[in-house]
């Protein structure tokens, strides 16, 4: 049998909000080659078998963070997950866990976008400088302190890996906390006090029970579990140190 005739079954969780009351599985037979990603598999379905299949993708090289899906129950970027690792068995593809399904493999990420806005993901200058004063300088060590946390591509695999987020979608969650931490520990930033209010809040880091799966599935080695757990210590310090500060410190 020639290479081109090999086929692999891809089972996709379909959901059409206008006609379906709940999601259901649909199996497609896709021509298989050794170099095909799961994303290419679903693209084949859309191009040749069923044009109504909806999914998000863009870069095909693990940079844009759009193509996150559950592949055999594991949160994965479908562009860097390869069908050859499953062949000849059937591959099960599903929308990212813990997010509401908008349609097929597309999830509603509105909740995360709100959280991302709330952490103020930009440098709040410690000492504002004029253009004439020049750029904000930073040593390589100061860069190294936060660099890992700045690698987040907002792909949301960590949220799909976090049962605490699944049980309580108000939890600020791994990626937003990792990015919050990235700015808090940046030597040029002075916004930590504002951001700590989120960390210390009811929706903050104490929902985390250190499952650690978020860091396992992260395609960029951000280690969001580390950011969340470091901020448990920071939150505890904030709580106890306010007794030592004049006027209590807390707002």
């Amino acid at each position, binding site marked *: 049998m020639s290479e081109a005739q090999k086929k692999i079954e891809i089972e996709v969780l379909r959901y059409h909000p206008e006609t379906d009351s709940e999601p259901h599985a649909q199996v497609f037979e896709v021509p298989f080659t050794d170099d095909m990603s799961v994303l290419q598999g679903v693209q084949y379905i859309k191009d040749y078998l069923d044009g109504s299949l909806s999914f998000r993708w863009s870069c095909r090289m693990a940079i844009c963070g759009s193509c996150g899906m559950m592949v055999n129950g594991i949160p994965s970027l479908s562009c860097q997950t390869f069908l050859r690792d499953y062949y000849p068995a059937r591959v099960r593809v599903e929308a990212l866990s813990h997010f*509401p399904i908008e349609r097929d493999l597309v999830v509603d990420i509105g909740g995360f976008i709100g959280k991302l806005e709330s952490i103020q993901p930009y440098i709040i200058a410690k000492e504002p400088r004029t253009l004439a004063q020049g750029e904000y300088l930073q040593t390589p060590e100061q860069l190294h302190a936060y660099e890992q946390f700045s690698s987040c591509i907002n792909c949301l695999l960590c949220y799909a890996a976090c049962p605490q987020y699944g049980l309580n979608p108000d939890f600020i969650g791994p990626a937003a906390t990792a990015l919050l931490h990235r700015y808090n520990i940046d030597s040029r930033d002075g916004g930590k006090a504002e951001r700590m209010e989120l960390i210390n809040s009811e929706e903050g880091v104490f929902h985390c029970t250190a499952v650690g799966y978020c860091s396992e599935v992260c395609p960029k080695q951000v280690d969001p579990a580390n950011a969340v757990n470091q901020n448990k210590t920071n939150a505890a310090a904030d709580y106890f140190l306010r007794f030592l500060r004049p006027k209590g410190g807390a707002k």
Partner: protein
Amino acid sequence: MNKRRPYVRSMDGWWRKNPFFVEYMIHEGTALFVAAYAGVLLAGLYRLSQGEAAWNSWLTALQNPWYIAFHVLALVALTYHTYTWFKIMPRTMPPVVVGGKRLSAWAITGSGLAVAGAASLGLLALVWGMAR
């Protein structure tokens, strides 16, 4: 009319859906053995406060095969608990920099396990020495 109708999937049985979560539930479950063993020690302390006869009857009760079986089970559970405790430790602490280099996760886990092992052996030696 808005045709959006986002579907929220149920979280029922979430921990059975992924081997990672099953392991998580098992290692969290071993904490119950830590609590149970603390209960045993507290009971002993309470019996000690009641005098020599009460203390000796507690010691005799500990020789019951069921109690010994519980201790063997608790030892296994606590050993696994200790291992998973130190395994997650690198994710819970700020980076440790030694000589300008960040300490690896396994170095942190390994040191934790080494300290736990040494402390357990030290305690065992101390109690053994006192009992002789």
